[in-house]
């Protein structure tokens, strides 16, 4: 019968061999690759755990409420905290996010929806990609020239602008990518119902692309929260609270966890170094919690 003919053609015996067998090179190959990627994934997690263990081990023992309520200690001083740096980080990163996220998403909407093939888009896309390679220090230098020198002093908004510059390309590019992934047929359906391009973007594309956009935003926020170099030129640091006695000193030098870690990890004093580790741990935990919140938002959005 023909079956036999085909079987020989494909180098197989008459009766089907259905059993999983390692002697099949294809099966073996598949299993080896699976193990390979699994191992690669686990290996890639090793550094993370190594860093995290280092953080937990070195920073964990300092954890206490005082870290959140007290000001940074000086040399040979015991105790102390970095409450002002936590508040400062939140303020600076919020300013940066308030600039970069809307700007980035709106740009991405243009790139993905309104004029994906236009010259404007290709120029803007190209610029966004160029920005990804912008050394963080240059973002600081730019914000220094544009804001610090113009306003006459180091300030939280200057830091926010510098960080926004670093967040912007990540937000733009990931948001664009995830908006492009929205199935064309879904957009077609909306257009076919007489949606204006804006309505298509708002009602279909943005909600559908939300999880991807959030991934990008989280990456950007995480990066911004950990950046030191640009803040040294813009927000500097402060050993005092940004909000105190009911007044705010937003236009003053502002503390941030990243600069705190940078300063204190380099001091020759035990207490300071431990503080730096504790601050790193707190910073990572803060980013983690933002991440979790983002994920909850995106999974909620998906259901409704």
């Amino acid at each position: 019968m023909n079956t036999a003919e085909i079987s020989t053609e494909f180098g197989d015996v008459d009766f089907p061999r259905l059993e999983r067998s390692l002697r099949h090179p294809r099966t073996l190959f598949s299993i080896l690759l699976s193990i390979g990627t699994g191992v690669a994934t686990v290996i890639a997690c090793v550094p993370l755990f190594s860093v995290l263990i280092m953080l937990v081990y070195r920073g964990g023992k300092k954890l206490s409420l005082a870290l959140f309520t007290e000001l940074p200690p000086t040399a040979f001083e015991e105790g102390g905290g970095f409450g002002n740096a936590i508040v400062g980080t939140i303020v600076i990163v919020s300013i940066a996010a308030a600039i970069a996220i809307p700007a980035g998403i709106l740009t991405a909407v243009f790139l993905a929806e309104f004029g994906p093939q236009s010259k404007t888009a290709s120029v803007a896309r190209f610029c966004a990609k160029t920005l990804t390679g912008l050394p963080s220090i240059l973002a600081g230098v730019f914000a220094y020239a544009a804001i610090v020198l113009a306003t006459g002093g180091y300030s939280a908004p200057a830091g926010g602008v510098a960080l926004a510059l670093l967040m912007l390309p990540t937000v733009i590019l990931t948001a664009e990518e995830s908006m492009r992934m929205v199935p064309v047929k879904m957009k077609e359906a909306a257009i076919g119902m007489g949606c204006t391009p804006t309505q298509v973007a708002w009602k279909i594309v943005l909600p559908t692309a939300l999880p991807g956009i959030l991934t990008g935003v989280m990456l950007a926020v995480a990066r911004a929260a950990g950046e030191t170099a640009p803040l040294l030129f813009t927000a500097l640091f402060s050993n005092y609270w940004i909000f105190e006695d009911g007044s705010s000193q937003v236009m003053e030098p502002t503390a941030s966890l990243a600069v705190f870690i940078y300063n204190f990890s380099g001091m020759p004093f035990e207490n300071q170094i431990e503080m730096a580790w504790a601050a790193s741990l707190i910073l990572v935990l803060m980013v983690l919690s933002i991440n979790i919140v983002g994920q909850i938002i995106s999974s909620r959005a998906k259901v409704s």
Partner: protein
Amino acid sequence: MDDSSVTAIDSYLAVLFLGDLMANATLSDLAESASISSPPSSMEIVKDRAFRGLTRGFAWLTVLVVFLVVFEVATKAMPAISAHGVSFLTSSTWDVQNEQFGVLPEIWGTLYSSLLALLIGGFFGVSIAIFLTQDFLPHQVEVAFKNIVELLAAIPSVVYGLWGIFVVIPMLRPFANWAHENLGWIPFFKTSLSGPGMLPAALVLSIMILPTVSAISRDALSNVPRKLKEAAFGLGATRWEAIIGVIVPTASTGIFGALVLGFGRALGETMALAMLVGNSNQMSISLFSPGNTLAALLANHFPEAGEREEPVLMYAALILLAITLLVNICGAFVLKHASARMRGGAK
């Protein structure tokens, strides 16, 4: 810069920009009273135009920002460009006293460390992305792993720098010494590892770009239509035959984009590199030799640069931007050809 000309999608957009409300009014006159349908109200049209104008404005804002940054850097670099010219690219001294400057070792170091990082980080990043999208693990575990990897992005570079010094270098040292002694004839192991150097820098760098690469390739992979995967499986492909033959090629533009983005990040990384690369004006193929990168040079010298050094540093920054630009141009070129091939428009 007028882009209303070429494509149909643009004319589709242009109609609203040019079209007057008259046309809509006539159509609405025609509307049957029975119909629920109503033409877009003038409010909707105004909103639509305003919003599209707004997004276009923001797109230009991005361009403007880059232009301003480049302008700022270029004007500040001008004195150095006229003073040092092309020799800046080919010489390798950095002597503030005698005003002799060259960044050849830094250019080499930037490319070398970033390529190494891309090689390592790219491999692991894409592997992770595959592992986390192709149903190897239960969904919850996938999400947990994804979060763990993205957490890597949250760690400040300074911490990476410290981790590199206190954990990575001591771990590498025995291996490096062994490689140098036994395999010293291989150019990569030519020198012994003193401490900071290319390999530790590239290793830490690759971990720093890992989240970017893996998160974006993950998105690209998970967006491959399920039906394609089913088609491959239906033909009797093993999981990996489907992944390699169909899924990865379909997601390849996204993955490539992730790699370019990761490479960009690696080129511009500052603090951790300044702590780990050794900051020495060396140009060596050896993995263990200390070196320097443009970003580390900037980080180390900029905060205290005097009048003489600042323009030179800006010149170096300009070169770094140019390298990034070049990488992106190459990336765009490759992508264009690859996706054209995939769409198969022409022969």
